[in-house]
């Protein structure tokens, strides 16, 4: 666990590479056209949309490793964006202050989840389902079904920190992936997360502060979802309550494809980001296959099953019976 890259991350990278190679071959254009899939603009596009899921998948991976589950990221993404947009456009706050408020809103959702799971003792599924409803509902109440047009107050060619705006989310995703991978692998806290997910009773007996660890992963997950939501709102230009509907399943799927086991105790933050990219590539490439319009869901479902089944088979072979 202390090696920065585990076997699992390497094979997830390999899957992503094969996927890209496959589509590069399959979508090869006839003579006089540029390649629709393999070009810089398309790569940026894939990264841009994958990072909506990817940033939140970092948090989802940590929650799943700790033995829990989080159904709220989609709602938190939307609510943070709504709060940011509302303050920026509706109340005239500065962008930084609005973003901070949006971040704190997301963190607040995380605290509620943490309290429900740790203090009250609700099963995480129920607790995050509740928070999902509350956050989503709050978004609708604040916006009353309309949206905040953030792009109206941003300069047309705005470049945050001198970079093209489309690069913001991907860079955030990659940066946060590195930060959290280090936390999980090199810090005692990260090891405690694995311990709690692997055997909560033994963790308690071993002196781990189980309640604190659990609370911290839910808080971190909500904060990451908030970051994703704020970036989404700024990049896409709209704070809207119905954004990211249903994204929680894709986010969890990214984490699982990246190696997280829903039983807890196993997973990888970098793997989750790679998982988000795997789905992002699929989402981008499939529209380019004529006639494949209605096969989307089927293919995505098949890919998930294949990857997870292979993972199980490999796990079983590795485990040495006593």
């Amino acid at each position, binding site marked *: 666990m202390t090696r920065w890259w585990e076997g699992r991350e390497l094979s997830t990278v390999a899957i992503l590479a094969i996927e890209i190679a496959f589509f590069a071959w399959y979508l090869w254009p006839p003579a006089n056209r540029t390649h629709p899939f393999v070009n810089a603009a398309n790569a940026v596009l894939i990264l841009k949309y994958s990072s909506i899921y990817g940033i939140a998948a970092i948090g989802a991976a940590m929650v799943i490793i700790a033995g829990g589950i989080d159904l709220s990221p989609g709602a938190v993404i939307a609510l943070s964006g709504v709060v940011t947009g509302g303050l920026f456009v509706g109340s005239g706050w500065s962008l930084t202050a609005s973003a901070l408020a949006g971040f704190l809103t997301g963190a607040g959702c995380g605290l509620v989840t943490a309290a429900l799971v740790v203090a009250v003792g609700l099963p995480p599924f129920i607790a995050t389902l509740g928070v999902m409803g509350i956050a989503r509902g709050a978004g609708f109440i604040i916006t009353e079904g309309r949206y905040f047009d953030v792009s109206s107050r941003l300069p047309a060619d705005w470049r945050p920190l001198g970079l093209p705006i489309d690069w913001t989310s991907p860079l955030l995703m990659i940066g946060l992936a590195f930060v959290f991978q280090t936390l999980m692998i090199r810090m005692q806290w990260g090891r405690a997360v694995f311990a709690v997910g692997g055997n909560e009773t033994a963790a308690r007996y071993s*002196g*781990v502060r189980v309640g604190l660890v659990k609370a911290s992963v839910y808080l971190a997950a909500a904060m990451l979802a908030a970051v994703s939501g704020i970036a989404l709102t700024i990049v896409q230009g709209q704070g809207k309550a119905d954004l990211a509907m249903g994204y929680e399943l894709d986010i969890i799927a990214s984490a699982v494809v990246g190696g997280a086991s829903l039983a807890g105790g196993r997973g990888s933050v970098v793997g989750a980001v790679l998982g988000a990219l795997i789905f992002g590539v699929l989402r981008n490439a499939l529209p380019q296959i004529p006639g494949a319009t209605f096969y989307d869901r089927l293919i995505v479902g098949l890919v998930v099953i294949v990857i997870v089944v292979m993972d199980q088979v490999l796990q079983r072979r590795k485990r040495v019976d006593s």
Partner: protein
Amino acid sequence: MAAAVEFRQIGKSFGAVAALQDVTFAIAQGESHAIVGENGAGKSTLLRILVGGVRPDRGELRIGGDAVTLNIARDAMARGVGLVHQEMLAFPNLSAAANIFAGREITGRFGWLRDGEMRDRARVLLERLDVPISPDAPVESLPVAYRQLLQVARALASDCRTLALDEPTASLTAAESDRLFAILDGLKRRGVTLIYVSHRLSEVFRLCDRITVLRDGCYVDTFSRDAIGADAIVQAMVGRTLPPRASVAATTPGGEPLLRIDRLTRRPRFADVSVSVMPGEIVGLFGLVGSGRTEVLETIVGLQRADGGMLTVDGRVRTFRSPRHAARAGVVLVPEDRQRQGLFFNLNLRHNLALPAAEASGARIVRGAERGAASALLARWRIKASSVDATPGALSGGNQQKVVAAKWLAMEPRVLLLDEPTKGVDVGAKYEIHGMIRDRASRRAACLIASSDLPELLGLADRIVVMREGRLRGEVSATDAAAFTEERVMRLATTAS
């Protein structure tokens, strides 16, 4: 007549580790046959091959004279082979009757479950085993010892001709063990073949006609019970002569106790328990099922809150909020159930061994130096594992227990609490663990051991405190040789005062 069970050149490897090599011997019909050996000798693996849990890589298994290939446990059951496991495998959320018949439910037409019939049969079995529980009792509410007896009932329910038992008395009291032996004697008389795997040589000698010894996956020899003594068996198992058990030096501790509990109470489990342990002293906490031993230890270390009473460590009154808090004060507990309470199967040994110390010291960063320290621990304790990167799932039960003990002892605690430290551990490792406890005691730590293994306590402890049904019944000291006997302790543990 064909042998009941015959192993011919059985070989089995798990990855690079050869668990069994070329094992050949036969078990006659109707005999009771013991298989003994150290940890890693291959006993459990051999049993698993017999009951179809594992397929051998090489060799042949014959049951009743026919060469068989068992693919799943049901094949073995179909051939009349039943197994009572070492690790308690039960469905805690189901009733006792459901557990007895799990997988072999009695069904009527269309597969409807015949609950009534199952409950009746279960009741009969439980009465025969003298287990005072109702067939409807939910298993999760039963104490560990009763669950063990459920295992036996389960095997009996399937009318097997060959019954294999893997450490069945590990969690049983002497009384319960006697009951079990009576039942096994009854089975013997009915011609059932018994295969008995155990570390407890006294039981083996009481019960079995012949004894097969395995060592390091290889077959050593088969002895007839009448022709051999315990020491010779141990020597065959270990392959070396063990030093004689160190006689208990009567320590003369003076001064203040390092650990003292005064009238510690947690209703309804235990009340008014007072024990003192001097630095360098080893005190045994003996009691039968329901006596409250585990609960006392868990309360001391902060897993539970006491209702009343006082805990004093090194002269300071303390109340520990959690095991973490206790560990930081140098008070640690080696828990009873290694699978549920002691090990992380998703982490490798290096992390398992380093975690408690890291948490107690408040470390923030995972340090590379842990690897070396973990390797040193594996070597010092002779824990058989391929490397520190192995996971506990790859280890045998005894080695797992050593890992659990090692990780706590590595913290060099001042107060060492242990709950059944050698349950399911082979003779060689048992001696090693005892040696470590003595080593800790010699460094002026206070050791309090809860155990139902009376010979172990008699050999190890300076004093034995006896509990029964949540209360202290008495105390015997090693200095008083006349009183420091099994009989005396058992009397205290079993009779109402």
